[in-house]
């Protein structure tokens, strides 16, 4: 698929990195892209179930565009959230629903998208789309 330009830029950035550890280092740098939640917002309500790490996501719709805030205790999961933020923030409901999660495979930062038994990225991604769908 074709990705939103900002996301494509991130994919391109990753594709230039040869070393796997360096790739993860860059991933962790994206943790800073996340609009962080306050401590009180680390609530069960926003919890992404099935993650190994504690991960919380809050979504909001303003003027028909979607904005996410999030936090995780794993820096890499928060890095993934950062990339998701780039992919999602400011997009319309339709644009967010069009996304597929495989850009993380293209970036080679995850090796599987199978939900539930693997990392929680897929769960997080599905949860975001589900929430956004309900905002339609």
């Amino acid at each position, binding site marked *: 698929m074709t990705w939103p330009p900002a996301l494509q830029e991130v994919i391109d950035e990753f594709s230039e990195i040869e070393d796997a550890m360096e790739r993860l280092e860059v991933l962790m740098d994206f943790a800073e892209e996340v609009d962080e939640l306050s401590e009180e917002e680390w609530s069960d309500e926003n919890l992404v179930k099935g993650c190994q790490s504690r991960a919380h996501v809050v979504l909001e719709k303003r003027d028909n565009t979607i904005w996410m805030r999030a936090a995780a205790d794993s820096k890499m999961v928060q890095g993934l959230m950062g990339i998701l933020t780039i992919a999602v923030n400011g997009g319309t409901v339709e644009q967010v629903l069009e996304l597929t999660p495989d850009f993380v495979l293209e970036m080679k930062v995850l090796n599987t998208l*199978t939900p539930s038994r693997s990392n929680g990225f897929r769960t997080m991604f599905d949860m975001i789309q589900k929430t956004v769908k309900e905002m339609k």
Partner: protein
Amino acid sequence: MSIRDDFPILNRKVNGESLVYLDNAATTQKPQIVITAMNDYYQNSNANVHRAVHTLAGEATEGYEACRNELKNWFNAGRVIITSGTTESINLVAHAWARANLVAGDAVILTEMEHHSDIVPWQLLAQDIGIELRFVSLNEDLTLDLDAFEASLVGAKLVACVHTSNVLGIRNPIEKIIKMSHANGAKVLLDSAQAVPHEKIDFKDLDADFLACSAHKMCGPTGIGCLLVKEDSFNQMQPFMGGGDMIQTVTISGSTYQENEHKFEAGTPRIAEGVGWAAALKWLSKIDLHSEHLRLLEIARWTAQQIKDIPGMTVFGRHADGDSAVVSFIHDSVHPEDMARLLDARGIAIRTGHHCAQPLMQRLGVEGTMRVSFYLYNNQAEAELLIETMKGIVERFS
């Protein structure tokens, strides 16, 4: 390349003769691609699938879950629980669904042509919770007596019915059975162990509530099978076996369970087997199952006719359209076991005995039968060799 070339075991010699494998209803052979897939898994990707972070664990997880996805596509099914085979799948329905949803006096309908795997779990449950078992009888021609079936439905909560008989090859009118059962408020569990290798099933279309089958009868490995479940029944199922992977959280005071199929897959799953089954489904999907079915049925019809023409032989079954390519028969003086051993001396493998269907044997008035069953790699020449050899044996030994 013919289909036969994909099966390394067909190069096998038995007692100096080329193997003629006619025991496919018991288990089918495996194409090289399936064997290689499992090999590759063990040589390159073996790892446990829980909470995969490292590379191998990711690959193993993808490999295992790919099996579920292949099954979902193959059957057009929403819920696919992976088990160790048809038998465990049926026991899973008995424990996870029936035990939680039936009460004493509720009736479960079975047929006289069920495999033991679709009888004993219900007898055990009946002892435990007092459900009533009703066995639907057969017509003269050994097809299911649909009038008797209809009459049995009063008060029935579940119909557990063989889709295609492993002894007779007869395919039950499952579409009708499902409609009649649902009209009477009964759910339907299909034992499709013998049907799945011969017909492509659309589970949503079919509208059955549960469907059980085994990989090893459709070119896949031993030790794995599945249960397809309709969403509403899935939601009525309670955990069966407890353990790793089927839980969400465990505390000393209690546990919560996964919401998807993993809820019923406790413990380390059949990972290599899943990889092998996925490969088998991919291999099968390149074959036109329906035209193969017609080809094999023709061979079975020819074989049945030829056997009937051998003095002293009786053939069971009708070999109508849709029936599987299975021929069961007896001879009035050559014991099945003797026949099987003599055929084996010529490299021909057939099965004998009660085929785990003793109530059907009683109905047929026999202790056991000989049974030949054809699959994708079999051909008319093999059937001809069988007939010729059997004729010789009957002449010499009867």
